[in-house]
């Protein structure tokens, strides 16, 4: 089964609003990553947060990680139409040979 599961599956907001997406996972991780995918394209890495970190920022993005609840959230502030995309979380297990396991994604629609 998928390690990371995003919630909600779909989100529709207006430009200027904030968008929050959540990711839950089941087992211990080394890091958790968020990726964006524009329609029909490859994934683009947004941010990586390690298991000993609680919060990380990158521009309009804010990621939090709560290892006790095995969950993470991605906040996009002041959203723009160009933020319309699918967002995936990916978890990496504790072992050095671990690979990423991707969730099924949240589809974000930002309307004008």
């Amino acid at each position: 089964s998928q390690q990371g599961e995003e919630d909600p599956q779909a989100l529709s907001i207006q430009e200027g609003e904030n968008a929050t997406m959540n990711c839950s996972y089941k087992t211990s991780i080394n890091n958790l990553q968020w990726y964006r995918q524009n329609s029909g394209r490859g994934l683009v890495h947004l941010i990586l947060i390690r298991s000993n970190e609680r919060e990380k920022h990158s521009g309009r993005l804010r990621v939090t990680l709560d290892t006790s609840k095995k969950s993470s959230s991605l906040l996009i502030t002041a959203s723009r139409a160009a933020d319309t995309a699918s967002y995936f979380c990916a978890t990496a297990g504790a072992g050095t040979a671990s690979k990423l396991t991707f969730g099924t994604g949240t589809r974000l629609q930002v309307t004008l």
Partner: protein
Amino acid sequence: DVKVTQSSRYLVKRTGEKVFLECVQDMDHENMFWYRQDPGLGLRLIYFSYDVKMKEKGDIPEGYSVSREKKERFSLILESASTNQTSMYLCASTLAGGPRETQYFGPGTRLLVL
């Protein structure tokens, strides 16, 4: 900037054909990956390679094989394409630190098997 390229954006093949999907990265990445992406299932790892001529099965290797003769190139082979292999195929590589670090993706190949 890291660049990962895939040989085709769209591909249409017939059942039973042998299909080659190629991926090239322009940095000295050790790890390369092939995923398939299907609606509702997210990305699933088919194979990955951690060095030239080295490969490891992912979660769904059945019906696929891979080849890595040079460090920059990783090929996915469908020996006898079937309709259930119709999917989006994504190649990725990691810059450093092993397969669990930041992955850089190619633009994807959308394969239709008729």
